[in-house]
C-alpha cells in the first residue's frame, strides 16, 4: 500500500478521493489546497504518489506537476480533472503525468488507476 498526497482546492473533492483511497488501504500523507502548497508538501513528505487537481487558484495542477517532476523526475503524479479539459490533459502528459482521473469520481475507476501505478 502507498503513501499518497492529495492536492485539490475543493474540500469535497479531497474528502471523496481520500475515502476511496483509504478504503483501498492507502495512507493519506497529506492534503494541499493549491499547487504551490502541494509542491512544498511533496518535497517535505516524499509520497509514493501525488494526485493533482488541474484547475486550482494560485498555482494550477500543471504548474505544480512541472515543479514536482523537476524535483523528482520519477514522481508518480495522477491528474484530476473535470471532463472536457483535453488541452490540459495533453499538456499534463507532456510534463510527465502518469495517469488521469475524471470527476465525478467513479470508485472502480479510481481504484483501477491507482492500483495500476502503486501495485
Amino acid at each position: 500500500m502507498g503513501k499518497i498526497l492529495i492536492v485539490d482546492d475543493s474540500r469535497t473533492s479531497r474528502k471523496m478521493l481520500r475515502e476511496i483511497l483509504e478504503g483501498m488501504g492507502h495512507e493519506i500523507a497529506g492534503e494541499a489546497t493549491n499547487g504551490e502548497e502541494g509542491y512544498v508538501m511533496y518535497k517535505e513528505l516524499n509520497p509514493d504518489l501525488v494526485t493533482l487537481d488541474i484547475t486550482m487558484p494560485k498555482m494550477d495542477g500543471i504548474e505544480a506537476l512541472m515543479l514536482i517532476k523537476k524535483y523528482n523526475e520519477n514522481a508518480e503524479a495522477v491528474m484530476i480533472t473535470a471532463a472536457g479539459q483535453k488541452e490540459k490533459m495533453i499538456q499534463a502528459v507532456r510534463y510527465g503525468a502518469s495517469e488521469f482521473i475524471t470527476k465525478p469520481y467513479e470508485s472502480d475507476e479510481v481504484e483501477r488507476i491507482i492500483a495500476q501505478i502503486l501495485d
Partner: protein
Amino acid sequence: MISKILGNYLISKGKITSEQLDDVIEEITRVRVKLGLIAVAEGMITQEQADKINRLQAVMDKRFGDIAVIKGYLTEKQVDELLRLQGNPYLAFAQALENLNLMKITELDDIMREYQAENEFTNSSMEDLKSDDVDRVLPLFLPTDAAEYLDMAGVVLRTMMRCVDNNVMPMKAYFDKQYLADNGAMQLVEGERPVTCAFAGNGQALLPIASCFGREAFEKVDEDALDAVAELINCINGLYASDMSQQRIEMELCPPEFSDSISGFYSGKMLVLPLEVCGETIRVLITIGDSLEMR
C-alpha cells in the same frame, strides 16, 4: 421529472396531496425497470457492457442508449425497442396513480387537458412533456429566445437528475439582470463565448444538493456545504466543455467560487432557471457571453 411536473399540478388542483405524490414517485421507482437491466435481460448486451456504460454516463452527459450506440454495443433500432419495452413515462405515472387508488387514467387525461390549456401548450408540446426526455421537455420551460442556453441548461438538468435527485423539476425560466440571493456558487468557463453557471440559494435551499452530492450531512449552508455545490457545478461545466469540444469549441474551466454571505448575482443578461430539487427551490443562473458577478 414528469411525475413532479404533473404531480405538482395535481396538488395545486387539490386532486392529491404532496404525501400522496411522494408515494406515487416511490411506486414508479419501484416498478420502472432501467434500460440497462432490460438490455441485459433481453441478451442484447452483457452485464459487463451495462456496467461500463453506467460508468461512462458519469463523464459523458449522455443517455444510456446513446452511449450504447456510440460504443457499438447496440443499434439505434435496438435502443428504440428497449425504450418501447421500458414503457411510456406518462403511462407509468398514470399506472402508479391507479395502483394507489388515487385516480383513473381517464380523469388524469381530463386534468392534463386543463394543464395544456392553462399553459397554452400545443398537442405536440404535450407529447414532448409526456416523453420525460430532457431535450424535449426543457424547451417548454425556456423563453423562446433562449435556444443558445439550451445546451448548458440540459447538462445541468441531466447531471442533477443523475447525481442529486431523479425528480428534479424545472419551472418557467426568464431573463434578468440580477437575482437576489443569500448564498451561492459559480464557475466561469472561458472560451470564445465565455459561459458561467451558478446556483443561487436563499436560506438553506442549497442544503439538500450539498449534502446529496457531497455525501455528507451538512447542517447548514456554510462554506463547506457550498464547496460541495461548487464541485457539482465543476462536474456540470466539465461535461458541458466536453460536449463543446466535440463541436471543436475549446473551453477552459476556471476555479469555482462560492460564498455564504452575498446580496445576489448580477449580470448584463442571465437566464434564471428555477429548479425544484429535493423539495427545495433554487435558481440556476446561466450567462453566455456576459459576465456574472456574485457579491
